[in-house]
């Protein structure tokens, strides 16, 4: 099967708009790679470059060792599923799925076999005689996937295939799609703006913003060790909290001052802070890694705040706390009873804190690694 490699790929559109800039990406054999980013970030452009619908302005694209940079889409053996599914409205479902095979001029009985097989796999075998407009959104989406899979592509490209489905369905299809990909073992690239989708399905996630790849890593890595403030703020629901802090040293020990209160600098950051001589930082911590206590016992691990609002979410509560004028969120168990304006103590788990440079918005680890 196929390894997809993009090397220094840049796409500038004729209008002068920069689609993507200097993209380097390797998608391994059988891997499920999610391209995650806000709308207009260049993730779909990247996908269309891989599909051959757009041609890169510079850079090269390889499928294994084959340079496909200038190959038309039909010579790349890819399956592509569009956000609006792009079914052929004048053809029945059967003919929609059979279309790629008919182009290949396969004998009709073989086409029949393959279409039925694929339809069975996606559980749409009962719909083969219908027209697309007679199907529900979820069914249309299955047809689109079937059409992409029937030609046994080397690479499966999915452009926000779930975003036109309602929320309930999206979640149930998510698991199904993930399982299908693993079963078929097709190298898959999945474009989405939904961080939950990316985290749930992908083997690795490439976070894209402003036409550049910001971070590539496993869902775990991207979630817990965001490379920039953007990544931390884009992933997670609610996303990571950010608050400005200042580094001070007392008696050989490093502290971060947040909202006028001292907490220990995380141990693993100490060498980085010392080497880089950092003074001002942005402190990032996730709501679920933050404990709330009714009262602070001064141990330099927590900061005092005030309850701004409580949002009951069913499974847990989200507490919005006012921390010296900045709002931060924490997820707490339902058992905790809090009232508005109550004084509370926020304790971010120190080993899970991520520190960023306020100027470049990159994490201190990334900057330290760049220096070496």
């Amino acid at each position, binding site marked *: 099967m196929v390894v997809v490699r993009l090397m220094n790929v840049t796409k500038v559109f004729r209008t002068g708009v920069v689609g993507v800039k200097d993209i380097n990406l390797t998608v391994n054999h059988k891997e499920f790679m999610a391209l995650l980013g806000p709308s207009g970030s260049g993730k779909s452009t990247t996908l269309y470059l891989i*599909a051959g619908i757009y041609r890169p302005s510079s850079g090269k694209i390889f499928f294994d060792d084959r340079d496909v940079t200038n190959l038309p889409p*039909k010579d790349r053996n*890819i399956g592509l599923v*569009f956000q*609006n599914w*792009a*079914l*052929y409205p*004048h053809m029945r479902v059967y003919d929609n799925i059979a279309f*790629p095979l008919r182009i290949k001029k396969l004998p009709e009985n073989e086409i029949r076999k393959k279409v039925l097989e694929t339809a069975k796999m996606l559980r749409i075998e009962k719909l083969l005689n219908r027209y697309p407009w007679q199907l529900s959104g979820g069914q249309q989406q299955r047809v689109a996937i079937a059409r992409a899979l029937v030609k046994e592509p080397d690479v499966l490209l999915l452009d926000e295939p779930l975003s036109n489905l309602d929320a309930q369905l999206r979640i149930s299809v998510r698991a199904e799609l993930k399982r299908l990909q693993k079963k078929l073992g097709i190298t898959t690239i999945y474009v989405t703006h939904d961080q939950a989708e990316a985290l749930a399905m992908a083997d690795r996630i490439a976070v894209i913003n402003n036409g550049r790849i910001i971070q590539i890593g496993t869902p775990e890595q991207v979630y817990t060790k965001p490379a920039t403030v953007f990544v931390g703020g884009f992933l997670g629901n609610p996303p990571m909290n950010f608050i400005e802090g200042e580094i001070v040293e007392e008696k050989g020990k490093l502290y971060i001052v947040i909202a006028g209160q001292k907490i220990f600098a995380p141990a693993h950051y100490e060498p980085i802070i010392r080497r880089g001589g950092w003074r001002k930082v942005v402190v990032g911590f996730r709501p679920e890694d933050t404990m709330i206590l009714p009262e602070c016992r001064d141990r330099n691990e927590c900061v005092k705040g005030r309850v701004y609002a409580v949002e009951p979410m069913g499974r847990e509560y989200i507490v919005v706390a006012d921390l010296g004028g900045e709002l931060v969120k924490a997820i707490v168990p339902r058992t905790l009873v809090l009232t508005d304006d109550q004084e509370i103590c926020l304790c971010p788990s120190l080993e899970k804190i991520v520190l960023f440079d306020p100027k470049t918005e990159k994490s201190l680890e990334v900057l330290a690694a760049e220096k070496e």
Partner: protein
Amino acid sequence: MSAGLRDIELRSRKTEILIVVTVLVFSIPLILGYSLLILSSFSKEMVTNLNPRDFIPTLRNWILFFEGRTAVFGGIRVNIWHIVLNTLIVALGVSFLVTLVGSMTGYAVSRLRFSGRKKFMALLMLLHAFPGSVMVVGIYFLYLMFLPSYQMVRLYSFFFVIVARASLEIPMATWLMKGFFDMIPWEVEWAALVDGASRLRVWRKIILPMVKPGVAAVMLFGFLAGWMDIIYVRTFLVDQTLATWIESNINAEYSYLPLVAAAGTFYLLPTIIFFLLAQRLIFTISATGVKG
């Protein structure tokens, strides 16, 4: 699918009746004119004076018409089926050419981002605004410029009528088709390309079936334009079509008007039939077809 849906229910029953009545009043002259024509074609005298005593039922007008007689007395006869055939050749020719060129330019204008595209579209609109009669002389000179002699224009007269008449219809057809192509999402075309189809195949198997209503409409309008044309047929065609034949018989000394009324009714038939059959289609077009 949306059969159960209706317009928002704001209009009262009264206003609705009022609207229907107004529409009826305004269409009275139209309905009256056509009814009188049709009645006259079955009468010995013209009934256009609105005098009921003029109506003396007979089928003679129609019989004479199909015999190709131009007058009740005298021996002038033409082969009417030959004239109908001529009219059909012109109408079908225009229809074919308008559809072919209109759908292709419409696709180009809708899909390709070439420079001067906007100006081209505006120019087409402008062209459509010119009445055809203004251009007859110009077109004649244009033909002469590219042909060695005047005789050639006579020789290929059908060709020249069709090309000239079609070129008048093509701007509108282009706009109409553009509207239809605009409604097809790019993704559908891309999907077919990714599926391995060639450009031509995408056009034929995917795009064209999706704009079928548009093609049908353009074909229809083209046909009617050719069927109805009189100026270009008179200028370029050596043979007669129904339009020129009727026209030449109205003013003739020997003209017998009830017979001309029969011819006129016959001449109206395709228009009436098409509009009855294509009502739905026309509505779709006026609602969605032509848009910038």
